[in-house]
C-alpha cells in the first residue's frame, strides 16, 4: 500500500489528547474494554486500551460513564455527491448522457458542504467509501474514500477503486442481458491491456473500440491489480460468476458489493479470499436476484470465514450513512434468535469500522483505534450501537469537529412552534 499511502492527503497537525476512563471499543472485532484510555497525537492514534499511560502535557478528557470508539466507516455510499436526491443539479451520482464510463472520477463531485456530510458526522460517521452509479456502461467509474470533517478537504483517497455492475443492473447497462454484460467486461479489460501495452496505438475513436482512451486508461490499474475492483452482484449464480473471473484474471483485486445470497455460497467466497461489503438487513426478495435474502446473511458469511463488512447500496446511500450503528446492532440482536446467525458486538462494530477499510486495503490507515491509525474518534454517551446513544464529541484526524447541521438548527428554531415578537425567520 506504499503507493496508495503517498496519495493520502495529509491532515492538519493536532495536539496530544488523552481520553480516559471510558469504555473503549477498538473496532478490530475485540470486545469493548472498560476503563480504557485513548491517546491521540498529531492526528494519529498513539495507543488505546487498558493500562495506557497518559503522556505528559496531554490534554485529558474524562470519558467516565461514556464510550470511546473509532468513527464509523460507511462501507459503500454516495455521501458527498448529493444534496437532494430528486433535484438533479445537486445529484452527481450518475451521468446518463456522458460518453464516458470507467474514466469518470467522483472527486470533483464530492462537495464537503453537502448537508449529508455534516449529518453523517453528527451521527458518528467519520469516513465513507463513495462510489459513482452506473449509467450506460457496466463500469460506473472511480470511487474515493472521504472524511466527513468540517473543512474543504474531504477526499482522503482519490481513485480508491473502480466500480462495476454485473447483476441485474449490469445486464441492463450492457443492453439487456448478463451475457452481454460479461462480454463487455472481458472486452473492456482486453482494451485496457491493449492500452497498457501501447497507449499511443490505442485508437479509442475507431468503430470497434468499446472504450474511449480515457476509459481504457482508467482500467489499466484495475487489470494490473493496483486498484481494487468493486463488483455489485446479489445472486448466488452471479457471485459464482464473479469468483470465476478471479481465476480468469488472477491479478484483479476483487471486492463483492451486495451479495444478498452470499450465505448460500459462503465457503466458496471465503476460499477465494474475496472481501464482501453487504447490506445488513436485506431480507426481502425485492428482486429475483435476491430470493434467498435474510438478515443472517452477514453472520453466516462471517461464520464461514468471509471477510464481510456492512455497506449501504440502496436508495438511502447518499444521506443515511448514520444508519451504520443501527444496522450493526440489529445483527447483534440476531444472536438471540434460534436459527439466525448474527455477529458478536465486537464483530458488529468492526463491520462498520475496520471492515470496510480492510476491504479496500486501508485497514492500516483507517477504521480502528489501533496504534498509528488516523485519529477518527467518537465519544459516545452510551453503547455506540444502541438506538438511544448520541455522539457527544467527534475527532477526525485528531481535529475536534462541530456537531451542528441544518437539522439541529431547524430543531432549535422550532423547539417552540409559536412565534414571538418577531417571525421565526429572525431566530438563528
Amino acid at each position, binding site marked *: 500500500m506504499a503507493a496508495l499511502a503517498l496519495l493520502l492527503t495529509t491532515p492538519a497537525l493536532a495536539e496530544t489528547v488523552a481520553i480516559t476512563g471510558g469504555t473503549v471499543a477498538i473496532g478490530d472485532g475485540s470486545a469493548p474494554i472498560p476503563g480504557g484510555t485513548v491517546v491521540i497525537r498529531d492526528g494519529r492514534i498513539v495507543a488505546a486500551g487498558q493500562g495506557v499511560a497518559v503522556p505528559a502535557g496531554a490534554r485529558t478528557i474524562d470519558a467516565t460513564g461514556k464510550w470511546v470508539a473509532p468513527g464509523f466507516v460507511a462501507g459503500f455510499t454516495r455521501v458527498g455527491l448529493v444534496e437532494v436526491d430528486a433535484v438533479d443539479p445537486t445529484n452527481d451520482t450518475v451521468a446518463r448522457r456522458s460518453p464516458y464510463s470507467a474514466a469518470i472520477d467522483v472527486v470533483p463531485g464530492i462537495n464537503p458542504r453537502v448537508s449529508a456530510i455534516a449529518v453523517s458526522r453528527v451521527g458518528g460517521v467519520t469516513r465513507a467509501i463513495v462510489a459513482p452509479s452506473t449509467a450506460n456502461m457496466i463500469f460506473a467509474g472511480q470511487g474515493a474514500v472521504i472524511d466527513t470533517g468540517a473543512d474543504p478537504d474531504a477526499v482522503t483517497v482519490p481513485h480508491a477503486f473502480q466500480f462495476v455492475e454485473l447483476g441485474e443492473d449490469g445486464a441492463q447497462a450492457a443492453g439487456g442481458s448478463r451475457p452481454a454484460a460479461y462480454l463487455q467486461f472481458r472486452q473492456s479489460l482486453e482494451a485496457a491491456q491493449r492500452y497498457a501495452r501501447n497507449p499511443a496505438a490505442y485508437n479509442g475513436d475507431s468503430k470497434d473500440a468499446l472504450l474511449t482512451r480515457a476509459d481504457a486508461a482508467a482500467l489499466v490499474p484495475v487489470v494490473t491489480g493496483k486498484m481494487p475492483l468493486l463488483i455489485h452482484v446479489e445472486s448466488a449464480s452471479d457471485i459464482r460468476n464473479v469468483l470465476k473471473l478471479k481465476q480468469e484474471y488472477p491479478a484483479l483485486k476483487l471486492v463483492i458489493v451486495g451479495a444478498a445470497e452470499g450465505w448460500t455460497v459462503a465457503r466458496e467466497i471465503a476460499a477465494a479470499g474475496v472481501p464482501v461489503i453487504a447490506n445488513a438487513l436485506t431480507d*426481502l426478495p425485492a428482486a429475483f436476484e435476491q430470493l434467498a*435474502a435474510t*438478515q443472517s446473511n452477514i453472520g453466516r458469511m462471517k461464520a464461514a470465514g468471509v471477510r464481510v463488512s456492512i455497506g449501504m447500496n440502496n436508495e438511502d446511500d447518499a444521506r443515511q450513512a448514520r444508519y451504520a450503528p443501527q444496522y450493526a446492532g440489529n445483527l447483534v*440482536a440476531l444472536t*438471540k434468535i434460534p436459527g439466525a446467525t448474527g455477529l458478536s458486538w465486537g464483530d458488529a462494530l468492526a463491520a462498520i469500522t475496520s471492515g470496510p477499510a480492510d476491504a479496500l486495503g486501508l485497514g492500516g490507515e483507517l477504521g480502528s483505534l489501533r496504534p498509528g491509525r488516523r485519529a477518527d474518534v467518537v465519544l459516545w454517551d452510551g453503547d455506540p450501537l444502541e438506538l438511544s*446513544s448520541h455522539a457527544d464529541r467527534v475527532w477526525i484526524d485528531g481535529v475536534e469537529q462541530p456537531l451542528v447541521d441544518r437539522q439541529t438548527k431547524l430543531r432549535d428554531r422550532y423547539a417552540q412552534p409559536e412565534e414571538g415578537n418577531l417571525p421565526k425567520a429572525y431566530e438563528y
Partner: protein
Amino acid sequence: MVFNKGVFAALILSTALAGCATAKAKPQTASTERVPLPYKQDPYPSTYHAYPGVPTLVTNVTIYDGEGGRINNGQVLFANGKIVAVGQTIDAPAGTTTIDGTGKWVTPGVIDIHSHLGDYPSPSVQALSDGNEATGPVRPEVWAEHSVWPQDPGFSRALANGGVTTLEILPGSANLFGGRSVVLKNVAARTVQAMKFPGAPYGLKMACGENPKRVYGSRNQMPSTRMGNIAVDRQTWARAQEYKRKWDKYERDGGEPPARDIAMDTLSGVLAGDILVQNHCYRADEMAIVLDMAKEFGYKVTAFHHAVEAYKIADLLKANGVCAAVWADWWGFKMEAYDAINENMPLLQKAGVCTITHSDDANGIQRLNQEAAKALANGRRMGIDIPDEVAWEWLSINPARALHIDDRTGSLRPGKMADVVLWNGNPFSVYTRPEKVWIDGALMYDALDPKRRPVSDFELGQPGEGDVK
C-alpha cells in the same frame, strides 16, 4: 424542558384523545325514514376470522399497555381472542397456558398506518407494481384492496421482525386523489377479503406537493404546480358536494336514483364522515392550506402522512385535531423532505398532537419500534422527557385512533382484540426482537418454533424457503 412524567403522560393522553376523536356514530335522521341506497356500500366484505388460540397468561413481564400505562413485573391474560386482564397479579383459570416473561416486554401489536405491502410487493417488478393509478390526478374510484397481493412476502417480515398486527394499505401518491385504502389484520390469507379488518372504515388517500405536480406536469397536464394541485382538488370537492346533494335528495324524497359515479361515491363518503382522509403532505405551509380547504368543503383530514415539517405547525395541528404520521429521520430524498429533523415525533407529542410512527416502506415496517426509539432518544437529547410507555402510543393507540379502530385494538384494555407482542427484551433497544406475536389471541409467530412462521406461496420452492429472515 423536563416534564413531570406522570403529569405529562396524563396531559398527553387527554389531549391526544381530543385530537383524534374515536369512531363516532353517524347522527341518526330524526323523523323521516331515508330511502335505502340501490347499491351495496360494502361489496367486498371482510371474511377474516380469528384463528384458534389458547387462554394465555404472561407473567413477570414489563407491560406497556399502549395507552401510556406501564406495569413492571406484571401479568397479561388473554382468552377467546380478547384481552381479559392486565395487572400486577391475575387469577387465571385452570388450564391457562403460562409463559414466563422474565426479562421480556409485552406490548400491543404494532399498527402501521402507512404501508404499501401487497400493492407494491416484493419482488418489485413492473408486473406487480399496482400502487398508483397514475392515469389521471383524480382517481378516488380505485380501491387499494383490488391491488393487494396477499402473497407479498413482506407481510410475514412485518409480523416476525416488526410485531405488526394491523396495517393500512394505501394507494400511492402520484395522484391528488389516490383512491381508497384498506385496513388489514396481518394474517396470511388466500384472499385480501380474508385479511380485511372487520368493520374498519375506509380511508381516502390524498396527496399534496411534488408528486402529483411532477407526474402530471411532466406530461404537460394539470396539475403542474402547487396552485394547480389545489385548484384540481377544489373543483373535485365542488363536484362531490353536488353529487352528494343529489343522493341526499334521493334518500330524502325517493324517485329515480341519480347516476352512479364510483369516484364520487368515495368523496361523498368523505363528506358524510364515513371515509377518513389520510393525506400525504410534507410541508408545513401546504398542510395549512389543506386544513383550510377541508373547512371550505366540510370534510376532515384525519391524519397527515409523512408530514416532515409537522413540527413547524404543531400548534396548528393540535388546534385542528389532526394526527401526524411521520418517520423518525428520513430526509433529503426530495425537496419537500429537505427540512426534516430527528425530533419531529417528540415535538409533536410535546404539543399534544396525536403522534404516529409510520413506515411507508417494506423494510421500515420491520423496525417501527426502533424508529420510535430513535425519535424518543432525540427528544430526550433536547429535553423532551417522554416516558417509554407513553411513546408506545405512537405505535399502537394513536394509529388505531386515526383508523377509527381504537375501540377494538391498539391497547391491552380488557375486551379488546388480543393483538399482543412478547418482545425478548426492551422493545426500544436495537438488540430486541419479537419472540411471539398473537393476533386475536392466536399465536401467529413464535421465534422459538420454525413452524410458527408464515411462508408465502411465492417463497415456496425458492432458496431460503422457511428460513429465518
